[in-house]
C-alpha cells in the first residue's frame, strides 16, 4: 500500500517547484509557505516509507523494458536524511532569504534540487540516474550563483565546468555499460554480473563511474570546486550542498553502482580506501589554516566524506577478499552511519555560520569574538555540532568514527585506524579554534549592536542539534533494525540486488 506513495517523493518537489514559479511571483510569503509545505510533506512521506521495501514499476512497464524505482534499506536511509535536512533548510530560509530578492525562484530551484536528489536515490535505471543527477546539478549551479556577486558567479562557473566533466564521464560510463551488456536497468546488469561474467569493458565503465562520481562528491584529487562553491552559496544552500547533495549525487550513486550493479572486487575496494584516506588527510590539513568560517567548513566536508568512503571501502575490500563478513558489516555500518551523521552536523554548522553571518555580516573568524553573550542559541548549536564533527563521545560523530576505527583494527589495518584517529584530533583542534575565535574573547567594537538571529532560524538549528545529540541512539539494537541494519544489508548483498529486484517486480 505504502508503495503508492513512492512517486510523490519526486512528484511533490517537482510539482510544487513549478507551482511556486507560476503562482508565488508576487507574494514571497506564499513562496515560503509552499516551500516549507513541500519539504515537510516529503519528510512525512519518507518517514511513512521507512518500513516499506519494494520495486515500483513506472507506467506498468516491467524491467528491463521500463524504468523501475527501487526502495531498499540504503535508499530509505538516504531519503530520510535528505528530507530532514531540506526541511531544516527551508525553515531556516524563511528568515535568512529576506536578504535576497526573487524568493519564488529560490524555492523553485531548491525544490528542483530536492526532487532531483530523491530521483537519484530511488531510481533503478542507469540513464534515469543520469537524468536526475543532471536535474539536481543544474539546479545547484544556479543556486550557487544565486547572489549574483563576484565570488558567487566565479565559484558557480568553476563548479559548473568541473561538474559537467563529471557528468560527461558518467554518461560515457552509462554508454559503456549499455554497449557491454545491452541493458540499462541496474538490476538486469547486476544479474549479468552475478553470473561471474568479468568483462574488461565493464572495468573501464567502473573507472569512469568512479572518477565521475568522485568529481560530484569532491573527493581529493577532484575537490577544487567544493571549497569555492559551498561557501559562496546562501547558507541554507551550503547546508544542502554539503549536507546532502554531495552524498546523494556522489557517494550514494557510487556505492549503489559499485556494490549492487558492477559488483565489488579488490581493486575497487583498494581504490575507495586510498581515496578515502587521501580526502581525509588532505581535507583536514587544508581546513586547519582557514580563517573564513564557511570555507573552513567546506574543507572539513571533504575530510569527513573521506571517512564515509573509507568505511564503506574497507567493508567492500574485506568482502571482496573473503574476510570476515561481520567485520565488513561493521565497517560499512560505520561508513553509512557517518554519512547520515555528517549530513546532520555539517548542515547544522553551515546553518550556524549563516546565522552568525546574518547577525554580524561577516564570515571572517578574526573579525568575530565574544558572541557567547549575544547569540546563546547559535553558540549552543554550533558547539554541539563542532564537538560532534570532532568525535567527542556523547555526540553522534563519535559513534560512527568509533565503528570505523574498530573495524579497521579488527581487519588488521592498524595504520588506517591510526590515521583516522589522527585526523579526528586535527578536526578537534580546528573546531576549538572556531569556538575560541567566534564565541570567546572580546566583542569587537563594531559588533556591539548586533542581536541574536530570528527565532525561526533558531528552531531549524535546534531541530538538527537534537538529532546530533540523539542519533547515537540509532545504534541501539531496537532502532538499528529500522534504518541502519537494512542499509548495511543493502550494500552487503552486492549483486544479489538483481535477484531481489527482479523477483520483486
Amino acid at each position, binding site marked *: 500500500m505504502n508503495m503508492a506513495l513512492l512517486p510523490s517523493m519526486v512528484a511533490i518537489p517537482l510539482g510544487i517547484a*513549478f507551482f511556486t*514559479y507560476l503562482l508565488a511571483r508576487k507574494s514571497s510569503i506564499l513562496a515560503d509557505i509552499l516551500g516549507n509545505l513541500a519539504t515537510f510533506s516529503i519528510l512525512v512521506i519518507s518517514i511513512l516509507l521507512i518500513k516499506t521495501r519494494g520495486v515500483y514499476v513506472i507506467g506498468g512497464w516491467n524491467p528491463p523494458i521500463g524504468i523501475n524505482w527501487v526502495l531498499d534499506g540504503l535508499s530509505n536511509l538516504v531519503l530520510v536524511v535528505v528530507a530532514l535536512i531540506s526541511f531544516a533548510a527551508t525553515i531556516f530560509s524563511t528568515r535568512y532569504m529576506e536578504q535576497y530578492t526573487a524568493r519564488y525562484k529560490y524555492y523553485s530551484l531548491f525544490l528542483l534540487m530536492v526532487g532531483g536528489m530523491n530521483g537519484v536515490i530511488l531510481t533503478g535505471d542507469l540513464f534515469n540516474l543520469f537524468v536526475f543527477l543532471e536535474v539536481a546539478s543544474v539546479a545547484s549551479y544556479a543556486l550557487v550563483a544565486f547572489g549574483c556577486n563576484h565570488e558567487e558567479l566565479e565559484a558557480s562557473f568553476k563548479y559548473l565546468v568541473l561538474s559537467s566533466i563529471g557528468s560527461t564521464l558518467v554518461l560515457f560510463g552509462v554508454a559503456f555499460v549499455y554497449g557491454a551488456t545491452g541493458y540499462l536497468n541496474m538490476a538486469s546488469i547486476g544479474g549479468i554480473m552475478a553470473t561471474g561474467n568479468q568483462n574488461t569493458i565493464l572495468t573501464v565503465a567502473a573507472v569512469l563511474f568512479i572518477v565521475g562520481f568522485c568529481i560530484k562528491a569532491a573527493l581529493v584529487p577532484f575537490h577544487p570546486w567544493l571549497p569555492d562553491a559551498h561557501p559562496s552559496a546562501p547558507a541554507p544552500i551550503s547546508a544542502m550542498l554539503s549536507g546532502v547533495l554531495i552524498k546523494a549525487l556522489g557517494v550514494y550513486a557510487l556505492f549503489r553502482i559499485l556494490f549492487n550493479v558492477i559488483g565489488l572486487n579488490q581493486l575497487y575496494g583498494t581504490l575507495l580506501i586510498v581515496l578515502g584516506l587521501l580526502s581525509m588527510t588532505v581535507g583536514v590539513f587544508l581546513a586547519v589554516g582557514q580563517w573564513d568560517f564557511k570555507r573552513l567548513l567546506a574543507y572539513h566536508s571533504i575530510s569527513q566524506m573521506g571517512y564515509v568512503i573509507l568505511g564503506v571501502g574497507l567493508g567492500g575490500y574485506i568482502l571482496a577478499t573473503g574476510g570476515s563478513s561481520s567485520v565488513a558489516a561493521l565497517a560499512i555500518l560505520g561508513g553509512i552511519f557517518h554519512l547520515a551523521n555528517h549530513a546532520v552536523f555539517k548542515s547544522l554548522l553551515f546553518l550556524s555560520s549563516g546565522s552568525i553571518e546574518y547577525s554580524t555580516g561577516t564570515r571572517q573568524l578574526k573579525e568575530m569574538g565574544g558572541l557567547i553573550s549575544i547569540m546563546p542559541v547559535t553558540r549552543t548549536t554550533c558547539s554541539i555540532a563542532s564537538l560532534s564533527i570532532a568525535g567527542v563521545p556523547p555526540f553522534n560523530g563519535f559513534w560512527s568514527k568509533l565503528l570505523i576505527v574498530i573495524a579497521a583494527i579488527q581487519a588488521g589495518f592498524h595504520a588506517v585506524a591510526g590515521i583516522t584517529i589522527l585526523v579526528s584530533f586535527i578536526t578537534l583542534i580546528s573546531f576549538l579554534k572556531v569556538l575560541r575565535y567566534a564565541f570567546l574573547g572580546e566583542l569587537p567594537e563594531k559588533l556591539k549592536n548586533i542581536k541574536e538571529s530570528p527565532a525561526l532560524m533558531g528552531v531549524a538549528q535546534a531541530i538538527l542539534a537534537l538529532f546530533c545529540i540523539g542519533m547515537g541512539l540509532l545504534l541501539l539494537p531496537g532502532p538499528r533494525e529500522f534504518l541502519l541494519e537494512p542499509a548495511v544489508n543493502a550494500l552487503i548483498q552486492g549483486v544479489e540486488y538483481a535477484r531481489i529486484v527482479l523477483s520483486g517486480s
Partner: protein
Amino acid sequence: MKGMTLIVKTVTRWVKVFIFLYGIYLTITGHLTPGGGFAGGVVIACSYILLTLAYGREFALKNLSLGKASVFDSSGVLLFLIVALLGIGFGGIFFANFLQARYPGEEFALFSSGTIPIYNIAILLKVGASLFNVFVILSILRIVVEKDGSKKMVAEGDREEE
C-alpha cells in the same frame, strides 16, 4: 526601420504560419512518425525567433510576452505531472497509460496511444516557451558602462528609452 529588410519581412509573413503549423503537426503525430513534443516545441520556438529577427523584439514580445511565455512554461510541466498523477488515480500506477487501456484505438490511427499525445503537448508548451525565453533573455541583455566606470546590465529596450 525596425527589423530587417522588406524581403525578409514579406517572406516571414508568409512562412511563419506554416512553420507554426508544422510544429503542431510534428507534436500531434509524434507517436506515429518521427517528431514529438520536443521537436515540435523547437519548431514553434523557431517561428517566434524568426519573428523576433525579422520584425524586431517588440513585435514578437507583443505576441508572446516573457511573462506569458514563462506561464506556458510552468503550465506545461504541471500538465505533464497532472496527467502522470492521474495515472495513479485511474490506472493505479504513476505514468500509467489509463486512456489507452480504456479506449484502445486502431493501430496507426491518430487517437491510438492514450495519454502520449497529451504528454507531447505538455512538452511542446514547455520546450517552445522556454526556448523562446532563453533566446530573448540572452539576446536582450546589454552591458552598459555607467558614468562612474562601473558596469551594469540592462535590457536593451530600457537603454533606448533613456
